[in-house]
């Protein structure tokens, strides 16, 4: 029997609810306040310049780069999880890719702010675009900054298109549900966004082909985008950064941060929206175990870094020692403990299922990766071999505001996502249920 006995109405009814309760309103208020702080920090930076920041020689890179690689790591891992689910054809659990992809999109948006602000004169960011300027000057294509421009832009466009394409059939469902409930304004908005999707079997065939094709294309894009970020470090002559292993380190440690955020979101969404049946225990087990396994992999990456440093030339060895045992040692080891150690709790059943465990562990892993990025950027620039050690880098209030603000922007985008669109892919859900019935 393959008729649809399974109903996705609890999912589609969520965005059509009139009232989301005081918790949601409080969340929006908090996230909105932080986003306003972000706007304030950006305006202050535009008016006063980077003197507001704690960056100085030798610490030429600070919070902007730390937060940039942190956010891009979250985006990449969330995207990676989403596309792997889509590519596992006929497998279950495809439907949870929706909010993983949304988290990726929000994280890319948060990440994209930083390289622009980092430029010093952010209003001239369009100089990285090869456009026919009147002074006939072109960007230097051998510069990592230009690679990064293409990397971020492609990431935003491809992730956005991928997410929206998966959403079109569900927007059509939202349109029809809104009509059935007599909510004509919503029906018109969803209808416009659904582009007139009518579920033709011919359309489905092309839709699925395009969707899976793009999922397959996103994989190499993620690896290259994250690698480009790491290469920005590796192509400099800073000893701790100028290593071939850096892209591996950045890609590998990015994964638990993104999976941790997706895990926390999954726990919050299923509890907060009452979707335990749609984001079920199996999904939580899959996510939790993946996060724990990725953390274990990071353990190898950390061990390799220390081991290989022993075999390196004296300069690199000193730089590594300065990072792991110098002024920023606490960040290095704290990061390692949170990235590698904390997610190991997810091997316990209870920790994966219960939101009060899964949320702190997931966010803890993300925080650990943030410490790792801080250690990489600031710890890599430590000059302790100079007779007089330069003052250390410490972020200033405007920098903290910028970080908190970007967290607020991410939260606000995720709340808007949970409010306005179905958080799990309804058509994938129906598809999975129909296939599950076939003997």
């Amino acid at each position, binding site marked *: 029997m393959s008729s649809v006995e399974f109903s*996705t109405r609890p999912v589609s009814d969520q965005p059509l609810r009139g009232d989301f309760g005081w918790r949601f309103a409080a969340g929006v208020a908090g996230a909105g306040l932080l986003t306003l702080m972000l706007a304030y920090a950006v305006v202050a930076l535009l008016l006063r310049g980077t003197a507001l920041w704690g960056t100085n020689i030798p610490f030429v890179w600070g919070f902007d780069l730390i937060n940039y690689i942190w956010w891009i790591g979250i985006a990449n891992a969330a995207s990676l999880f989403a596309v792997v689910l889509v590519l596992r054809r006929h497998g279950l659990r495809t439907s949870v890719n929706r909010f993983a992809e949304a988290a990726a999109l929000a994280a890319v948006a948060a990440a994209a702010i930083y390289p622009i602000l980092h430029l010093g004169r952010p209003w001239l960011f369009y100089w990285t675009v090869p456009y026919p300027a009147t002074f*006939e000057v072109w960007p230097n294509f051998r510069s990592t900054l230009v690679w990064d421009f293409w990397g971020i832009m492609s990431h935003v466009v491809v992730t956005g298109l991928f997410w929206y394409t998966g959403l079109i059939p569900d927007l059509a469902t939202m349109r029809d*549900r809104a009509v059935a409930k007599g909510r004509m304004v919503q029906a018109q908005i969803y209808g416009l966004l659904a*582009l007139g999707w009518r579920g033709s079997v011919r359309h489905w065939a092309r839709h699925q082909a395009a969707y899976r094709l793009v999922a397959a294309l996103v994989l*190499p894009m993620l690896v290259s985008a994250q690698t480009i970020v790491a290469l920005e470090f590796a192509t400099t002559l800073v000893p701790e950064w100028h290593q071939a292993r850096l892209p591996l380190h950045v890609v590998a440690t990015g994964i638990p941060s993104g999976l941790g955020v997706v895990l926390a979101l999954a726990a919050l969404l299923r509890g907060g929206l009452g979707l335990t049946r749609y984001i079920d225990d199996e999904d939580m087990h899959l996510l939790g175990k993946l996060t724990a396994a990725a953390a274990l992999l990071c353990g190898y990456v950390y061990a390799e870094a220390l081991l290989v440093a022993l075999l390196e030339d004296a300069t690199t060895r000193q730089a590594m020692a300065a990072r792991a045992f110098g002024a920023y040692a606490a960040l290095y080891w704290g990061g390692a403990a949170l990235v590698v150690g904390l997610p190991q709790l997810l091997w316990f059943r209870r920790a994966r299922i219960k939101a009060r465990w899964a949320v702190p562990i997931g966010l803890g892993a993300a925080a650990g990766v943030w410490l790792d990025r801080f250690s990489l950027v600031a710890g890599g620039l430590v000059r302790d071999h100079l007779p007089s050690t330069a003052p250390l880098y410490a972020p200033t209030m405007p920098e903290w505001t910028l970080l908190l603000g970007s967290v607020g922007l991410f939260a606000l985008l995720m709340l808007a996502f949970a409010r306005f669109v179905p958080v799990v892919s309804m058509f994938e859900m129906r598809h999975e249920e129909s296939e599950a019935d076939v003997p």
Partner: protein
Amino acid sequence: MTSAVIAEFDSQDALVAALRAARDAGWRRMDAYAPYPVPEAAKLLGATGARVAWIAIGAGLFGAVLAYATQYWLSVHNYPLNVGGRPLHALPAFLPATTIVAILWAAAGALIGMLALNRLPRLNHPVFAAPGFGRASEDRFFLCLFAGDPGLDAREALYLLRRQKPLSLAELPA
């Protein structure tokens, strides 16, 4: 004047059976609507995603050539910039942007090409007038036969679809 007949089913199997019967009876101008992909029905209608893949490959190659050629021409001919005597034509430095831009074009080509092949956006369509079609995006399956081919008119369609025991049957004006 009636130019199409649409039948509503409550299962994928009933839809595929009706589709097969209609195809065997010689119907070619027809379409099926489902709340999720039904590869079996797509096969009966002769629909594949192959053209999407070709568009993606073409767009990706175009993007790669465009990105590499732009970097080469600008760096070597139009605005050569001597940075520490490094070669102007720098293959390793040109590759990251080339790869990424190729992926950008291929992905955008696949998704926009898919919409173009599907003739979307098209906000209005005759099938939307079918009673209960709102549930085609939820839990109902529809088969629509468009009259027009010689010997295949609305009466034939009604006769054929009624034998498939649909939940409902409606005639649509074009």
